[in-house]
């Protein structure tokens, strides 16, 4: 399904993207993602397709806002039955939907007696009762218990895939986008990139997209040469090799994005001598300036020809380092992503 919407108020937003399966639109806070969903649901004045010009009650859309907005004066099943016409079989149909989502046992509960995940399911059942063509979910992780968040969300995504409705999810949580069928990035109140998560994560289109995707190492350099599909980029006395982008031309300024977890410490490059020979490309000698534990991983700040943020997984070479150490860091060419520099 193709979504094409323009808003003037409360924010000026333009969004054109295709929704297929579980589609995540990621963007920083303040990008107007909630406004976009409300506009598609008909709750904010906007121009666009589909459903442009229809009042909200005539749009076949299931909208789950942040916090789910269950009616507190109705029980769970009455919430689910809300969109159904008042005739016989209403309760049975609501209970049938709830059974499908595995929450039939909660039918008589009041919404305030449900956990975040249970409320989300009731809200989903209620939206489905309306018979929508499109589901809209606003920050589905925000009201979930952090401990069970990923499990609840994984089940929700499975459920939505089984139902087979196109679903547009907006979030600031890129982690959620990684679990999607398709994703899009919103930067500057416009869609700057869309595709499968694999495509998008591997090739951020610009610096802001890269930051949004969690790249912490961003540099600019000069594309010097392209040989055998590999590009050589020079920056501050350092030369990096990366897969050549289709748009790349020697002599142009390019952006470079490297994920913290894609940087490794070269065997033999640490203060203790290792056995294996160090790799021959994308190697840099750095001074470790700070070491911080991050769960089971270790985050290093290191400085040399460039400043790098490095995330070492548990048990990786160098995970016994401390500040002041000299290390040889390296990154595989295929983990160096080039993007067009602005201007």
């Amino acid at each position: 399904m193709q979504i094409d919407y323009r808003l003037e108020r409360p924010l000026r937003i333009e969004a054109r993207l295709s929704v297929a399966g579980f589609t995540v639109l990621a963007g920083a806070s303040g990008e107007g993602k909630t406004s976009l969903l409300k506009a598609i649901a008909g709750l904010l004045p906007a121009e666009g397709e589909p459903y442009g010009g229809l009042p909200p009650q005539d749009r076949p859309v299931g909208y789950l806002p942040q916090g789910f907005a269950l009616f507190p004066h109705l029980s769970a099943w009455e919430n689910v039955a809300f969109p159904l016409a008042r005739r016989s079989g209403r309760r049975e149909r609501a209970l049938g939907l709830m059974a499908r989502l595995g929450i039939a046992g909660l039918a008589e509960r009041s919404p305030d007696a449900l956990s975040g995940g249970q409320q989300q399911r009731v809200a989903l059942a209620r939206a489905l009762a309306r018979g929508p063509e499109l589901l809209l979910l606003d920050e589905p992780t925000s009201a979930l218990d952090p401990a069970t968040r990923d499990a609840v969300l994984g089940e929700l995504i499975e459920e939505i895939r089984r139902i087979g409705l196109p679903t547009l999810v907006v979030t600031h949580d890129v982690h959620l986008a990684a679990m999607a069928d398709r994703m899009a990035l919103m930067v500057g109140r416009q869609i700057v990139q869309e595709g499968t998560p694999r495509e998008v994560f591997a090739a951020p289109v610009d610096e802001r997209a890269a930051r949004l995707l969690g790249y912490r190492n961003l540099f600019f350099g000069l594309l010097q040469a392209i040989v055998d599909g590999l590009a050589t980029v020079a920056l501050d006395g350092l030369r990096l090799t990366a897969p050549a982008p289709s748009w790349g031309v020697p002599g142009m300024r390019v952006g470079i994005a490297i994920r913290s977890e894609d940087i490794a410490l070269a065997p033999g490059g640490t203060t203790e001598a290792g056995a294996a020979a160090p790799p021959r490309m994308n190697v840099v000698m750095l001074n470790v300036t700070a070491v911080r534990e991050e769960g089971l991983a270790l985050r290093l700040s290191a400085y040399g020809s460039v400043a790098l943020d490095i995330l070492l997984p548990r048990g990786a070479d160098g995970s016994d380092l401390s500040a002041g150490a000299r290390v040889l860091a390296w990154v595989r060419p295929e983990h160096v992503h080039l993007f067009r520099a602005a201007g």
Partner: protein
Amino acid sequence: MPLLGLGALIFLIAPFAALAFVTDWVGFHFVPGDFSAAFVSVAYSLVAMPIIAALGTPLAWWLARRDFPGKLVVDALLLLPLLAPPLALGILLASLYGPYSAAGVLLGRVGVVLTNTAAAFVLAQVYGAMPYYVLAARAAFEAVPRELEEIALTLGKERWQVFLAVSLPMARLGVAAGLALAWVRALGEFGIVLIVAYFPHGIPVKLWVNLEDSGLAAVYPLLWLFLIVAMPLPLWLGIVSRRRGLM
């Protein structure tokens, strides 16, 4: 805090406690016209209440949900019937709807006389009580999260269905309090009624007449009667509105 609250409670009920002592229980009797006054008060209030609800609810909802230029002015104007002394309101109503006014002449042609008639009595009650209802109901509607009304729309309900299924049940405590307040105001209305509908006597005017004609001994029994007929509706409203799933 609890002590202060208790103090306020005692202050409020003390006059009624005193009523129990000053009433002459041995010689307790009603004077002629007391029961018909009670009937007039209750019956006409029962007519006034649906009118107050029917006219006041849309106004309260409109004020709670719509923003428009000059809303502050409307808010200020709505304070007028609350601020003005009831006696003055009675005089204003009489000059607007009385037999010598343009409106009075027009109404007279269709057989409606708004002085010393049942219609005038109800007019006075509606006018005196509706502002209180609108005030309470408006606050109650404002407290309903807009998001819930919006969600109800996206679930395919028309606006009037959303009002009946979401806004009204969620505001029911405040709306019921407003109705109770309006009932009490309508039953107890004295100043406006005195001017616009001295006849037929309702309880408040009859209390005044009894005091003038027979003295205190004729006031207390009628006051007991007033409390007995006035209390049930507010009590009932308080109980039903606290139940879940009124609608």
